[in-house]
């Protein structure tokens, strides 16, 4: 006796959250059944393995049919085929678009193209996440990217509107899209200690301050960057950053800057002497990072540079986080007292964001 056909269709579509998770995690039906058996569900319900198998198959089939709709969540809301209560719809969408930290760290900043997709195999082996799940997550990133890439307006809002995600998840996706678009390098060994959260935090600051949309003014040329105000960095701004070079190139300015900072911080830092000794190096590092941002290659290396030029030197001298904060605050504020420096606004736009990023990046 073999079962040829075995289906269950409810007027209200039954969604089993546990099975959904297993499906999202990319387990095959038999693996999912095995995992469910291990969870002790048979003992709880007195069911047999065959029942569990049939139930899992049913759910998998349902999810498979729903997947097409989940690719465009508003469709899920308007479709007539599956009657699903709104709260469940939200759950389906949110879980479908959720991603694994380990996975996102692997692809963050990478081009979301076919080439990368081939690397998914490697990622799968490396992270232990099933290839199927990797595919889903990658495709989600790509899909969201494709939809919002060319859209004007707030990135987070666009994502929220087109994918009906929660605020938190929309922000994460905004970061992913932003990173993918600017191709920031995140995979280097020295960046491994950073979490997705760290990057997402930086991304949000950068979106807020360094993109065209951040300026809040309509671009002069309507044809040029109308569509991706939140996704691309403000090119003019990056060009202007070259002007900051004077802070390190002009020896007098650099000395003056150093003395201003040191005077204020004397006695307030536990690592004052190290700071004093390193000031010029650090300042050079930070300003050079800014000056290099004109080249897109260097933009990609932003985080590598930041870690190399600032985080690592400080860490090797065992700066406490609080001292880093005091230093950065003073470092950026003191520039206002430099009479010979004319790019105060530019400096604030740059350092304001960078300070936030560096503080977030500064940990073990």
């Amino acid at each position, binding site marked *: *006796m*073999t*079962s*040829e*056909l*075995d*289906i*269950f*269709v*409810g*007027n*209200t*579509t*039954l969604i089993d959250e546990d099975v959904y998770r297993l499906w999202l995690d990319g387990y095959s039906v038999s693996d999912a059944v095995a995992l469910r058996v291990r969870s002790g569900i048979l003992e709880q*319900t*007195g*069911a*047999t393995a*065959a*029942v*569990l198998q*049939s*139930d899992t*198959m*049913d759910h998998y*089939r*349902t999810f*498979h*049919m729903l997947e097409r709709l989940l690719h465009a969540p508003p*469709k899920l*809301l*308007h*479709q*007539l*085929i*599956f*009657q699903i*209560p*709104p*709260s469940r*719809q939200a759950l389906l969408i949110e879980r479908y678009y959720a991603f694994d930290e380990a996975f996102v760290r692997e692809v963050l900043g990478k081009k979301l193209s076919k080439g990368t997709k081939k690397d998914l195999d490697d990622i799968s082996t490396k992270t232990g996440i099933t290839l199927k799940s990797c595919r889903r997550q990658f495709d989600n990133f790509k899909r969201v990217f494709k939809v919002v890439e060319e859209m004007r307006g707030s990135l987070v809002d666009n994502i929220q509107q087109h994918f009906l995600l929660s605020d938190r998840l929309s922000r994460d996706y905004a970061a992913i899209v932003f990173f993918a678009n600017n191709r920031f390098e995140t995979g280097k060994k020295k960046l491994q200690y950073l979490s997705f959260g760290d990057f997402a935090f930086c991304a949000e600051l950068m979106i807020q301050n360094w993109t065209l949309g951040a300026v809040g003014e309509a671009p002069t040329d309507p044809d040029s960057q109308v569509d991706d105000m939140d996704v691309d960095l403000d090119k003019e701004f990056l060009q202007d950053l070259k002007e900051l070079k004077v802070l390190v190139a002009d020896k007098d300015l650099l000395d003056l800057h150093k003395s201003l900072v040191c005077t204020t911080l004397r006695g307030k830092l536990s690592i004052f002497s190290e700071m004093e000794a390193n000031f010029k190096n650090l300042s050079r590092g930070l300003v050079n990072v800014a000056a290099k941002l004109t080249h897109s290659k260097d933009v990609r290396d932003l985080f590598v540079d930041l870690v190399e030029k600032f985080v690592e030197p400080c860490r090797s001298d065992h700066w406490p986080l609080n001292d880093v904060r005091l230093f950065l605050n003073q470092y950026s504020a003191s520039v206002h007292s430099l009479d010979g420096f004319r790019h105060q606004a530019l400096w604030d736009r740059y350092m304001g964001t960078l300070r936030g990023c560096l503080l977030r990046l500064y940990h073990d």
Partner: protein
Amino acid sequence: MPGKLKVKIVAGRHLPVMDRASDLTDAFVEVKFGNTTFKTDVYLKSLNPQWNSEWFKFEVDDEDLQDEPLQITVLDHDTYSANDAIGKVYIDIDPLLYSEAATVISGWFPIYDTIHGIRGEINVIVKVDLFNDLNRFRQSSCGVKFFCTTSIPKCYRAVIIHGFVEELVVNEDPEYQWIDRIRTPRASNEARQRLISLMSGELQRKIGLKVLEMRGNAVVGYLQCFDLEGESGLVVRAIGTACTLDKLSSPAAFLPACNSPSKEMKEIPFNEDPNPNTHSSGPSTPLKNQTYSFSPSKSYSRQSSSSDTDLSLTPKTAPSPQGPRIYLCPSSPPLSCGSLHLKKSCLLLSDSSLAPHHCSLGSPVLRKSVSFSEELFLAASGMGSGSAGKEGGPFKALLRQQTQSALEQREFPFFTLTVFPPGFLVHVGGVVSARSVKLLDRIHNPDEPETRDAWWAEIRQEIKSHAKALGCHAVVGYSESTSICEEVCILSASGTAAVLNPRFLQDGTVEGCLEQRLEENLPVGCGFCHIPYDELNMPFPAHLTYCYNCRKQKVPDVLFTTIDLPTDAMVIGKGCLIQARLCRLKKKAQAEANATAISNLLPFMEYEVHTQLMNKLKLKGMNALFGLRIQITVGENMLMGLASATGVYLAALPAPGGIQIAGKTPNDGSYEQHISHMQKKINDTIAKNRELYEINPPEISEEVIGSPIPEPRQRSRLLRSQSESSDEVTELDLSHGKKDAFVLEIDDTDALEDVHSLLTDVPPPPGFYSCNTEIMPGINNWTSEIQMFTSVRVIRLSSLNLTNQALNKNFNDLCENLLKSLYFKLRSMIPCCLCHVNFTVSLPEDELIQVTVTAVAITFDKNQALQTTKAHIEKSLQRASADTEELLQFPLELCSDSLPSHPFPPAKEHLESASSNSGIPAAQRATSVDYSSFADRCSSWIELIKLKAQTIRRGSIKTTVTVEKANPMGEGNFRNRSAPPCASSTVGVVKMTPLSFIPGAKITKYLGIINMFFIRETTSLREEGGVSGFLHAFIAEVFAMVRAHVAALGGNAVVSYIMKQCVFMENPNKNQAQCLINVSGDAVVFVRESDLEVASVQQPTANCQPLCAGGEVTT
């Protein structure tokens, strides 16, 4: 030219991409009705076109309106090649043809293609302008309402139940026409869908005509089926019960408990007050009622009511209210029957004194006084003639005579109803069924479907004679079915033989209305169990005892029926689903040899199914089956039998004996041991089941005060006080001892296996119950969560081990596993009950068995405490009323001794008792509120409302004010308890249920029948996820289309939903599959009983149900 159909195409959405180059679609729409076609403009390059067309107007005959579906085709415009069809929508416009149903169809419909499934949606608006047709000889029957529901629909009352209507239409199956060889599968499927749609329209119209002929205005329990006879054609047949229905004008009249607490409550009492004789005020004004129901154009079709004078009010509908009484007495031997009436009239009193829990807002006081006088009148007429017959026989005879007169002119006194107005069902004889094996031949002339007609007529005749043999004149819960394999067809019909109360059956006179009291002549809760046949001349050997409830009449030891459990039936414990499953191998044969082989097997199958049912019933410790449905399916090389029913323990029937196993060779020691081991297992199972289903018949406590069922006690005492001879009581006691155990002989392996299979049936996991009837006996605190589902399984038998035993085991496992799967899937709903579990078996191929199950899972409130407190209150109320009852006996006796000229004093007495009664619950209320239990608050709230109705009647405004204050408070409570409303979704939720009601809600409007037929075919089976993926998607699509149609009609639920056919064929080698599905149901609008947590409110509602229903009918 009596109708104008208007259609507007508004927009489309989610259309498929038809042009690969642009990823877009240039869509336009063709709207076709009959032979007229309109087209919209092409909406270029969009997947969400906005056509916003003009109104397309079709001027058509109403005959066409009934027959034809509106056909909407969405196409992709192609400049160079033929336009590609995207899909179609068929809209049945029948619901627009009756006045009370929908007025407009408007909404999003899934665009359906038989090859691709649903492809986007289209927004359509449809309206119909009907003109009156003055032609008496018209062919249309617009305005006749159709209901799939097998009970009187909730917001109607039955004035007359006319009886059986049937019709069948035949045609050639397009799939088998020569042209099918050259056309595409799509064209063939569409031709078939369209033809079936046309045929059902025609069938419905013809049935409607028959109903009009009978002077009815509705068909209830409408069941339409298709027989796909293959080569020989396509038969669409339908049966139903013609009724004259009357819409209940005040929706709150009988359901105060279910109403939202605000508006209606306030109005009704006031409405009633100035004019207590209105429609809803009870039986005191039957004359008025009748007038009402026939008042022009209110409840009747727009077309005919004004034109057809026969149907409007005529003088003959207006005799005096006493008419039927007078009619009744002379036509019967008054000598003996009268005394019986007398006795029963006392019983009536005991009932009506319970009036405080009557849900009816109508004045119980008034009703009582009237009924009382009527009863006295009757009783006295009996008294006048003298003696008191002990047996109910003469009364039965009288009833029989009467009913006969009402039923005799009918060819087939059949009723497709399974639930009846109280009092309608007098006695139930048992299940009657008939089968016949026929060889199909080509239908030569579709216009003369005589052969098929004759076949059915033959079967019906047989059913009728079976019923007669059981001493019954009518068959209720009647249904017909077929099973076809190649050219052999088994026609089956089954029903329950019954004796009916003639009051609903009278044609064209008001008598029906006035027979109301007759219903109460019968002891409530056990009357239907009493045997209708002659004890000395029994049609079959049965073991009779005196009724355990009333101790007066004889009852059989077990009762099998096809109907639902009567609402007033007294049941002990809970019920459960009982199934008998059976397979028999059969040699492959051709034509007549095959038919003969099948005919020879059938009786054995019937017998075995029956034995299995009986064994399982006993194993469950129960004594009656309801909703019995035996399905025999024929396949190439086997026959399958599947019987499903709901077992219950009826208080009126004797306790079932155990099952005793007897071996053939009693000398063998080990064998003996084996047998005794088995016996022990069986006994244990019975004991366990009794515990599980809470079957504790109150045998011992019978005479103890405070017995769990006070009514029998009360009644027996009443009887005794009514000068019953004492020897009857002793006789009763004798009957206690007689309990024969059922002996099962294990004389061969077959029987051994039977016993095993008995024991392998696993009970549902804790928290689950299942039944195949509308409601689960013993559970009445339903909550609002429902989940309707369809589950399909197909297994392939390995042809190696095809023995009967192996087959049986396979089949048994299939069904058991299916049930287990259901329990597992629905575990999140625990505690819940699977209701209306409907199994269908088919044998699509040699080694394939397909089982389709449709059922609904309903949650209920586990908290038994709530129930028991409620029950406690109710009980004490009953006791209280019983007390007042006793007080009343004196006046009653006095009265019956005197002449009928004094009917009023007792009535007055009663009036006072009623008021004092209403005082008692008040006291109860005071305490119950303190429990702070929700249920209590609810019930007390309901009591308050009832009280309010009464107090207003009595003119006390003071209490009214307090009640008014209490209302919002209670409401607030409910609100707090209710779940937070879900965020508004763009798609309205449409509930579907095979039941005739929605728990926790009130149906306010019936929008019309949904009857849909779909074909789905694929040539890429693997790509669609194999057979499971294909069928899963298709069933989901069918649900979606049903929901969309209901929503477009303005409804939010389908009740009495049924999947009548699910024919699945596959050809995996060719990567093909095809499936045909036919579903039907009633589209309705329901209103949640406010937003309150329904659990506790539903419970009192259900408790009152018999009474409620009583109110409903008597209004």
